[in-house]
């Protein structure tokens, strides 16, 4: 019920103030010129540069617009109208980024192709937020704020860590940028939970911690087609449930959901039950972002990311659409119908993510019926367990105490940037990595679990192929048609794309 006033506020804001505002990009016809309105510099292979102070128009094979070309010595200059895209090694555009009390400049790179020394980047299709490792980079721990694709979507994530403190109490994590993205990390901290040996501490759907015990499988679990998938969900063994291909191909804008129905005998006198998941997203979101939201817009995506998503109207529109469509929705059967009681946000396609959700048991109910619904083939579910013994534990916050750059030297500036959720950010680029250290108390024999709490956002780099193959007739507008387009593309490639996706991480060592 708490959601209602917030939703009302959102609707109010959108309808009263922002409804007439749209993404500030001129509509374009298929494969016709796309205007970038921000100032742009185009660096050419011969060392010269063309300055477009008022932006430039990008076609499939050229840049056009009034610019001034300066030779490598910057002594001689000539006016230019058109330059072949094949002559360009890279472009920079500029936008003013307003960041609470601080205004500063950021540059968005558009790599057109043939960039010397960036072969690894050119083949990368990997894309999904900062990745976190422990044990000297061996153990994959988490991926952070995967849905935060623009400053206005800056979000906080909580992830369960497998790693332990060393004998002195030090917890070390390696954070990498393995994607064609710029990451903006605002805050890193640990949450330490001391708990009983038979309890497992897991993040809840709202970023807090939950301690559960007496975990047991959900005995009856059937998919939308009525098949028993209970055995597949019993253990955290990497054998996961995914939507079958027929269901994916049958999806339409009128019906694009898949679901799993659970039947849970209630242990009296329980008034709530915790569902505990181990799952990750499929690459449907990635296809949606790359192939539907950004790729077809080509150069226009620069403006959409740089300006469009900086507008509250566009961000709210996208956010509401994402809220409605993404995530995993948990509904409970009561009074003859399913009622949504919780939504678990997306967690990204790379790491298995454990998350718990405590849902109410309707009064007098002896057999709880639960429906888990989501966009078709949006989730990979490895384990689903149930607990009637869940509690909110006491958490102790452990601040970030040190950062080491890739050269092993202490980086005080990075530490300052990530020590608090404020206006300061650590910015990382593809191939960057650093080690974050947290000083906890030395182990004292009690069982404890660490959760990583992180806050930030990331922005995608615009691929050269997107610039050259832009086909969109207008900027991206959130819609179910867009989701269905992504599903169709995902259906064509899902068997091979995941393999390529994981192999194409930008190397950091």
């Amino acid at each position, binding site marked *: 019920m*708490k*959601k209602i006033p*917030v*939703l009302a*506020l*959102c609707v109010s804001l959108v309808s009263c103030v922002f409804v007439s505002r749209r993404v500030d990009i001129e509509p374009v016809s298929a494969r016709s010129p796309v205007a970038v309105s921000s*100032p742009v*510099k185009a*660096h050419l292979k*011969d*060392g010269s*540069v063309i*300055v477009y*102070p008022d932006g430039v128009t990008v076609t499939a094979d050229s840049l056009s617009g009034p610019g*001034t070309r*300066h030779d*490598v*010595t*910057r002594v001689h*200059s000539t006016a230019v109208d058109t330059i072949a895209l094949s002559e360009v*090694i*890279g472009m*920079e555009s*500029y*936008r*003013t980024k*307003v*960041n*609470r*009390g601080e*205004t*500063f*400049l950021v*540059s968005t*790179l558009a790599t057109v192709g043939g*960039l*010397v*020394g960036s072969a690894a980047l050119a083949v990368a299709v990997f894309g999904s937020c900062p990745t976190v490792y422990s044990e000297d980079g061996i153990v994959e721990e988490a991926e952070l704020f995967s849905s935060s694709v623009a*400053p*206005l*979507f*800056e979000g*906080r994530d909580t992830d369960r860590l497998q790693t332990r403190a060393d004998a002195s109490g030090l917890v070390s994590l390696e954070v990498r940028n393995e994607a064609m993205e710029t990451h903006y990390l605002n805050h890193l901290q640990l949450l330490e939970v001391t708990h009983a040996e038979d309890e497992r501490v897991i993040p809840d759907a709202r970023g807090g911690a939950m301690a559960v015990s007496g975990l047991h499988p959900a005995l009856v679990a059937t998919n939308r087609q009525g098949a028993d998938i209970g055995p597949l969900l019993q253990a955290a063994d990497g054998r996961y449930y995914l939507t079958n291909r027929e269901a994916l191909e049958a999806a339409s804008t009128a019906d694009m959901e898949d679901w799993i129905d659970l039947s849970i005998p209630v242990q009296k006198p329980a008034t709530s039950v915790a569902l505990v998941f181990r799952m990750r997203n499929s690459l449907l979101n990635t296809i949606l972002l790359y192939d539907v939201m950004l790729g077809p817009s080509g150069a226009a995506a620069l403006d959409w990311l740089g300006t469009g998503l900086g507008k*509250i109207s566009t*961000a*709210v529109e996208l*956010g509401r659409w994402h*809220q409605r469509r993404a995530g995993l929705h948990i509904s409970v059967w009561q009074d003859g119908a399913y009622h949504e009681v919780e939504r678990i946000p997306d967690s990204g396609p790379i790491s298995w993510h454990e998350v718990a959700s405590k849902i109410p048991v309707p009064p007098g109910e002896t057999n709880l019926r639960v429906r888990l619904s989501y966009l078709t083939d949006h989730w990979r579910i490895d384990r689903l367990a149930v607990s009637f013994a869940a509690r909110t534990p006491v958490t102790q916050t452990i601040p970030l105490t040190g950062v080491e*750059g*890739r*050269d092993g030297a202490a*980086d005080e*500036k*990075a530490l300052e*940037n990530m020590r608090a959720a404020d206006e300061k950010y650590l*910015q*990382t*680029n593809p191939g*960057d990595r*650093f080690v974050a250290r947290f000083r906890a108390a030395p182990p004292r024999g009690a069982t404890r679990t660490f959760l990583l709490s992180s806050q930030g956002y990331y922005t995608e780099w615009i691929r050269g192929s997107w610039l050259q193959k832009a086909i969109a007739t207008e900027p991206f507008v959130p819609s179910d048609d867009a989701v269905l387009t992504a599903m169709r593309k995902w259906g064509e490639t899902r068997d091979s794309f995941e393999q390529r996706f994981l192999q194409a991480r930008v190397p950091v060592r």
Partner: protein
Amino acid sequence: MKRVLIVLLVATCAAACSYGLTTEKLRHTSSPRGVTARITTSSTEFRGELVQVQDAGLLILTSSRGSDRAPEHERLLRVVPFGAIRSTAFEQLGYAYHISDGRPPNAQTRERLRLVSRFPYGLAPELLKQLLDSCGQAAVAGVQP
């Protein structure tokens, strides 16, 4: 949902309050050159254009050398090793771009500086030679006179 409220609140504040450096004010956005730098070493001070950020130092095209009171005009391509840099100042750019005390910049500062240099995508040997020719140099100079 609390997050939505916070995001909306922050976004509203962000949209309402805008001051400081903007794209329109930054001369580098409309200049073909790198940003203007002032680099102080233990023995002198160089002024000039940031040409390239290299692994071990900054490649600059100097316009003068020496103190504010008695600058000597020069036009040379010089590499100033990070270890020799006591302090830096880059025109219109703030603390986030600073290098000081002989320490190499961290990855973030290095990336920022790269983007405001003349050649953010690198400088091929044949292009460097053209630049050297234009300065009448056979090789890039160091920090010594």
